[in-house]
């Protein structure tokens, strides 16, 4: 039987969740034995080259590209996992939700303390750039999500337990300590 194929992406996230994935330490060798990676920053494959079994996504959606990548994942993965606070709830980037987009952009490009050099008051508007959304959306508001792994970042052991259970078909056993944060 061929190995299950995994794809991952970071959308409006900080890559902390991916770092946590690497925190599984030497188990990463076992992971490589268990699964094959496709589109992912881990192996730097930029486009899907085949149908995948599991898609793991960190970060919510803050721009039009995030939406497109997310929809692409939904199309190409049988199972989609929201990894971490940002993917599940919007997280830190969603702090801007509730503040009008204009105010955010003005602060970022015109009024912020570090934009003194922008004398022509340029706002990035090239057609190549992703368009900013009115707010940051959690993944499940855009596509169907099958599983959620909470945490900021989720503990390495939690990611390991979940992925291992998925690919081996074992029952998922998550001790309370893995999802308890206070």
């Amino acid at each position, binding site marked *: 039987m061929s190995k299950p194929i995994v794809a991952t992406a970071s959308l409006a996230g900080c890559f902390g969740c991916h770092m946590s994935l690497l925190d599984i330490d030497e188990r990463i060798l076992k992971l490589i034995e268990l699964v094959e990676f496709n589109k992912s920053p881990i192996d730097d494959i930029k486009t899907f080259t085949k149908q995948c079994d599991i898609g793991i996504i960190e970060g919510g959606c803050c721009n*039009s590209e995030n939406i*497109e990548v997310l929809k692409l994942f939904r199309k190409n993965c049988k199972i989609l996992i929201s990894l971490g606070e940002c993917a599940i709830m919007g997280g830190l980037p969603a702090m801007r939700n509730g503040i009008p987009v204009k105010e955010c*952009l003005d602060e970022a490009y015109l009024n912020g303390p570090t934009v003194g050099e922008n004398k022509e008051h340029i*706002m990035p508007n090239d057609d190549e750039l992703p*368009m900013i*959304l009115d707010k940051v959306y959690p993944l499940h*508001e855009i596509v169907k999500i099958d599983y959620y792994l909470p945490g900021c970042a989720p503990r390495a052991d939690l990611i390991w337990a979940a992925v291992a259970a998925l690919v081996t078909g074992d029952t998922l056993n998550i001790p309370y300590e893995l999802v308890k944060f206070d």
Partner: protein
Amino acid sequence: MREKVISIVQSYGKNSGRLMDILLSVQSEFGCVSEEAVSLIASELGISEVDVNQTKTFYHFFTTNRVGKYAIYMNNSVVSEMMGMAEVVDELEKQTGVKFGQTTPDGLVSLHFTACIGMSDQEPAALINSVVFTQLNRDKVRKLISDMREGKPVESMFSEYGDGVNANPLVKSMVKNNIRKAGPVTLGEYAVGTSLGKALGMDPNAVIDEVKNSGLRGRGGAGFPTGLKWMFCSKEAGEKYVMCNADEGEPGTFKDRVLLTERANMLFEGMTIAGWAIGAKEGVLYLRFEYKYLKAYLESVLADMRTKNLLGNNILGKGFNYDIRIQFGAGAYVCGEESALIESSEGKRGEPRNRPPFPVQKGYNAKPTVINNVETFCSVVKIVEQGSAWYKAMGTEESAGTKLLSISGDCEKPGVYEIAWGMTLNEMLAMVGATDVQAVQVAGPSGSCIPPSQFGRKIAIEDLATGGSMIVIGKKRDLLKDVVMNFMRFFEDESCGSCVTCRSFNMILTKQIEKVVAGTAIRTDIDNMKAWSQIIRKTSRCGLGQTSSNPITTTIENFRELYEARTKDVAYQSDFDMNKAVADSCKVVGRVPNVHHE
């Protein structure tokens, strides 16, 4: 300003326990509690600004910015909406040229929404500078705003007063009592002082026994046996307090307002009997700010009782010293929860306490405290006067005596009814002249939404328990939009925010019901709402979070077809709209959106 604030703080003996009163006085004097006022109050009281601010920001009627010279607080409760609030709101915005949440540029008028103000039988209603205006419509709004432009005092903007004490020179309010049915207990015959005289002639324990034997249960909603509560408190040692819960915040209830208006003497007498029974020297009436128009009258009743030696030192010559003061709230539904009410009375945020210890052990000022509802104290007066057997003979097995119902909504005769427990909903609907009824909301938003197939059920603690709010919902209403959505927004606003689940799930459930109403929810969302309701119920500290999902759970239970008609039977559906989502940012940066469609 400085002198005024300092003198206000001094008038309350520089006591930080009276912070609520201080803030209320400052708000009423200046139309706001400015940051400057906050630091003055803090330094005068010798507490930190944070301590002042945390109380200030908790309550709806304290504002940082100055409200209009005429501050209009429009009730947006469910019954107000049913009775035509939208028209009134529209006319107010048209006439003033500003939106709700704003003040006219000249500072003359500000428009605010507020939760149920206890006038459900005469909606739409609003408070203007603490004066109640009922049954508003477009014409009345036009007249009111033109009066404001002329600078008329609010009190002179109407000339017809309500019935009974509402017309008393100290009240002069347009509020009507709408007493449709008086019973033998709270709205029956009453002679001031008889019962108190009798009680003071009895041993305090005998008074408690009388109350216990009567089977009286608390009328505030939870239905705890009153005699038992008093007995627990009487067994505690040291200084004690009696408190009356007149917060009456459950949307759709207004019977305590009628008792406060027509039976103030009786209420204070009941509180005094409680003081005698448990051994307290002081009683506190916690009165919701919405009823401030009754303040002068209630204080005159207290003064009158003092002159008649029914309050004060050596009451009726029996060596009993006891007095009552009035404590105002400042707009927060959760302060009706007894431990939040205590916190608020101590000048703090109205956040419910962990229990135990219960108030009877550790209540106001950390002393044992009996808290009862207005109607409970009034009932005690008749029980002591007529005896427990007389009282117990009325009602049902579990629910003795009579109950005041506040009935509102789609019926011919909204108002207050004193009925014997055990009446069926069918009988009640016939009594109030309601036909074409879709549902009855029993016990307010935190109660249950009952369908016609269950109208044979009884109003009683053993079947349909209620603190008295009964909202009749006609067939013409959109139950989910007009009722459930309004209720959920109410709870979302009123959660004190202490418990994560109550703070977030009320918001999430509100969003979800909005999706159902908008037609973008799916079938599985219905079960999700049920599951989430279980979580918030199980993990919330107080009754608010434990019952706030009831509007959703009881309508899913009893009106599931309404949900199914509005949800799609698909595995997933997103209402995300890329064009809409990028419109603003593209406009700001000056580019044409290029949205790909797959």
